[in-house]
């Protein structure tokens, strides 16, 4: 199926650990994103990645780093996890220049930091 996929679906870890979340899209899109959804369901953009150009939301701590091996993948690495990092992380993708440019979202990764 064509889609945006994420792994793992659930991630439970201890404070201070380092973890990664993987994202892959097979929609042929050239731009990928990471969003964070907190416990109140508020969604906030973290990163946008297009043709190796990374645009960072300035409010994101530098413990978060996206890594893109190619256009179809955008992974999120988190260092020194904190309790406040507990949230659902969504990956999304779109075509940069396309009129409309709808972003398609992955299923989410539910991160719980203990």
């Amino acid at each position, binding site marked *: 199926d064509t889609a945006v996929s994420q792994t793992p679906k659930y991630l439970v870890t201890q404070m201070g650990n380092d973890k990664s979340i993987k994202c892959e899209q097979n929609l042929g899109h050239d*731009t990928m*994103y990471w*969003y964070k959804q907190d416990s*109140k*369901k*508020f*969604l*906030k*953009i973290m990163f*946008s990645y*297009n043709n190796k150009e990374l*645009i960072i*939301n300035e409010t994101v701590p530098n413990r978060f780093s996206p890594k893109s091996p190619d256009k179809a993948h955008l992974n999120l690495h988190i260092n020194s996890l904190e309790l406040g990092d507990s949230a659902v992380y*969504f990956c999304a993708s*779109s075509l*940069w220049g396309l*009129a*409309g*440019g*709808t*972003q*398609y*979202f*992955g*299923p*989410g990764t539910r991160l719980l930091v203990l």
Partner: protein
Amino acid sequence: ELKVEQNPLFLSMQEGKNYTIYCNYSTTSDRLYWYRQDPGKSLESLFVLLSNGAVKQEGRLMASLDTKARLSTLHITAAVHDLSATYFCAVLIRGAGNMLTFGGGTRLMVKP
């Protein structure tokens, strides 16, 4: 800084009734999107609105955009239980990484 506000944040309604969700945004935008999210699920794209006066309809949902007022509405006609979900509007400003700024979401519960 772009701000996107939705209201109401919570809406409980009876089946068969009509209602409107409002989305206000603070700066000129290129595009406005509506998404649906079921509990524990991902976001599903409903509509993209590109220009002033744009109106799109799908089933019992109709979205409109007034760029001069910086206002979009999502109108629900004759609600049914299956429409129960959280609805988000999101605004895109090109040149800023195509990043979406989301409203706070409207949690809709349609009671049988």
